[in-house]
């Protein structure tokens, strides 16, 4: 495949051809110019972009809540918001970020865009179901947004009972309904991916020739399929209990509040892997490309994704060490939590081994990936500390926990998401983002992130509890909170920057050509932006993934022969 610039990509608005009546099937962005052609599309690439727009909106909404939280915590007194408003702020930050940004982020945007391309298919197995998933997401988001506008909700994103069922008088029902509905979007997307990966692979695309991103998406989908319904039923029961005033989870009426926590964490711990596994898939793709090397230990990385998904289902009790769960259960959950670190570490070691003797380029996606590896490692190791019963007793419900999961969620997943957006942006839009600005954003995010969250480890270790909007003057917390807020400002700016230059690049960016990174993988073999049905002819795969053994121009050639 050549890497020359496609003439129809040059200049002007990429959505429009000279003659708007012409439907250009060789470029999915120009196949239909009306709003209707976008809202009723069944093209997985367009649906990916619909998700991109929706979740970017949710991300900045959740970011605003985070900003207000950080502002409030700059001073020991509660001078910006009342305590009940503060409770709503961190609840809505959590709900919006977890359910409406992190969970759909890489799967719904990049998974949708890439899965059919990477396996050489024309579309997902169920294109209409795919579009429906987006609408379901939007409906769920609307309910939740309504709850937010109408006055918010203050149960924390975990909806712990019996507070959420018997005491909270905020908009619990609306929010719960929104999340319940959104869950179906997640399930249906996962279902579509599994069937697509099983049944739609191009000739020669065997399981162990698949890009590791697909293994990660497959493992993620399994969690979405098996985990999401359980939190769905837990939330449903909370809702019915609130309506009827019966106590399934209320100890006063014979219910068991811990049962709710079991059901909730049975999903919500694996959900951590819904958030992180796709990120790991992205890292595997990016790191090989910018090291110009075949990945080290392909089968180990591939299988470790499945292992993480599997073991991840049996560790949920580590969220409940202090709930009065039996000490034997605690012991087992602790041990299993240690176990899940093994496949994660396998990945990190293989990534670093891939760098060894590679010719490494420090482009924006690669910088984000380096950020991911560092921050995820810190997040993972502090996770081991928290999986230790003794340490958890000491730091549970403190900022130590907050810092830990932000290192995994933001430092891990969000950085991988940014890496992925930069890496595949040229494929999605046919245009380059400004590289200099990109590197600046990667640097700002990395620095800002550390400044925001490292002080929180210390805060937690010193005993600052989470969920409080005031703290004692003399405790010495303030300097750490101020550092954290300063970091959050840098972090916020670091995320705003890509939002601006991506939007700019979509319309005015330099045409990228089909394969600006000289990357391997079927998605780079088609044009940028790809045609509606992805490939001129169904590709036939004849070699393993990441065959970077040849350098220079040869790199982009010969990864498959086109079917006669």
């Amino acid at each position, binding site marked *: 495949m050549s890497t020359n610039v496609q003439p129809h990509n040059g200049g002007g608005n990429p959505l429009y051809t000279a003659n708007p009546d012409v439907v250009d*099937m*060789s470029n999915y962005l120009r196949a239909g110019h009306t709003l209707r052609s976008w809202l009723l599309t069944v093209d997985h690439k367009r649906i990916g972009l619909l998700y991109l727009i929706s979740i970017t909106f949710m991300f900045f909404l959740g970011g605003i809540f985070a900003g207000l939280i950080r502002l409030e915590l700059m001073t020991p007194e509660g001078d910006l918001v009342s305590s009940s408003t503060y409770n709503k702020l961190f609840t809505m930050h959590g709900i919006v970020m977890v359910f409406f940004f992190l969970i759909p982020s890489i799967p719904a945007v990049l998974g949708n865009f890439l899965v*059919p391309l990477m396996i050489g*298919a*024309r*579309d*997902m*197995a*169920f*294109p209409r179901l795919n579009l429906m998933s987006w609408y379901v997401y939007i409906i769920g988001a609307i309910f939740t947004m309504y709850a937010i506008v109408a006055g918010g909700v203050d149960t924390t994103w975990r909806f712990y009972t019996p507070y959420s069922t018997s005491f909270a008088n905020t908009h619990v029902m609306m929010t719960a309904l929104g999340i319940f509905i959104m869950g179906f979007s997640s*399930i249906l997307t996962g*279902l*579509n991916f*599994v*069937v697509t990966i*099983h*049944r*739609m692979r191009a000739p020669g695309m065997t399981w162990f020739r698949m890009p590791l991103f697909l293994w990660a998406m497959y493992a993620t989908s399994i969690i979405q*399929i*098996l*985990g*999401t*319904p*359980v939190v*769905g*039923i*837990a939330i*449903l*029961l909370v809702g*019915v*209990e609130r*309506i*009827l*005033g*019966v*106590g*399934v989870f209320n100890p006063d*009426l*014979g*219910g*068991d509040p811990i*049962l709710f926590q*079991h*059901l909730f964490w049975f999903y919500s711990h694996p959900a951590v892997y819904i958030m992180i596994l796709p990120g790991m898939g992205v890292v595997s793709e990016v790191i090989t490309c910018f090291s110009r090397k075949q990945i080290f230990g392909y089968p180990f990385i591939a299988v470790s994704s499945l292992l993480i998904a599997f073991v991840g289902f049996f560790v949920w009790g580590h969220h409940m060490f202090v709930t009065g769960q039996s000490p034997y259960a605690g012991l087992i959950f602790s041990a299993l939590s240690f176990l899940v670190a093994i496949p994660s570490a396998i990945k990190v070691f293989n990534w670093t081994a891939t760098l060894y003797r590679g010719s490494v380029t420090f482009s924006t996606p690669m910088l984000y990936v380096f950020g991911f590896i560092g921050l995820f490692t810190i997040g993972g190791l502090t996770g081991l500390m928290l999986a230790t019963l003794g340490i958890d007793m000491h730091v549970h419900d403190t900022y130590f926990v907050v810092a830990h999961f932000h290192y995994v969620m933001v430092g891990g997943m969000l950085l991988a998401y940014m890496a992925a957006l930069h890496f595949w942006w040229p494929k999605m839009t046919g245009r380059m983002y400004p590289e200099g600005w990109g590197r600046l954003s990667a640097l700002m995010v990395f620095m800002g992130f550390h400044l925001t969250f490292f002080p929180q480890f210390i805060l937690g270790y010193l005993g600052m509890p989470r969920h409080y909007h005031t703290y004692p003057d003399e405790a010495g917390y303030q300097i750490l909170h101020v550092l954290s807020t300063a970091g959050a400002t840098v972090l916020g700016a670091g995320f705003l920057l890509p939002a601006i230059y991506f939007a700019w690049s979509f319309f005015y960016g330099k045409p990228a050509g089909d394969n600006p990174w000289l990357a391997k993988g079927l998605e780079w073999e088609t044009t940028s932006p790809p*045609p*509606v*049905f*992805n*490939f*001129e*002819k*169904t590709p036939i795969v004849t070699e393993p993934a990441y065959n970077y053994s040849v350098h220079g121009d040869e790199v982009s050639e010969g990864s498959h022969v086109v079917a006669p």
Partner: protein
Amino acid sequence: MSHPERANPYVSHQFETATQQREASILGMWIFLATEIMFFGGLFLAYTIYYNMYTDAFKEASQHLDVMLGGINTGVLITSSLTMAMAVWAAQTSRQKLLVLFLSLTLVLAFVFLGVKAVEYMHKFHDGLVPGALFTYDSPRRDQVQLFFFIYFVMTGLHGVHILIGIGVIAAILVMAIKGKFHAQYNNPVDVTGLYWHFVDVIWIFLFPLLYLIGRYLPGAH
């Protein structure tokens, strides 16, 4: 762009062959059923825990369910699974009239099931056994009995919702069948609907003994 050769007009644009399309839709339904199992699984877990905590109360409460009506419904649902299986066979063998007949029969049986269920719900309503403000059951185990009926209504209610969805889907399939859309070359929708309907049936097979029979046939009843 790609112009897939359409030897078979029943193959959607994303698939290469009819076999691929068929395998994809069947795998998709099986995965959906896995989701459903986890969905009901949460409720079965809640049932198991509370049954073990409040065994006596659950047995006592179970006496208030109508085994007769529940048994009839079990028979109705199993029969509807048979007619559904026959419908799938009729579609695969291009027996147009039989297909319409069996789908209609399945639909009728589904309505019968819902009708009987509605009668049962009405009785519970009259007896003050609906959890919440209307719950009037008087016993030292009131809260625990209420818990049983809460689980009863959520589980059978959710199952009923699945029957309703099934009715919608079967009705749609029936309309398509009347138009002659299904035959040996193309019958995926019938096949997949069949899978779903059998699943709904199986859930009931678990619900019936757990809810209706525990108080009667386990040692230590009364």
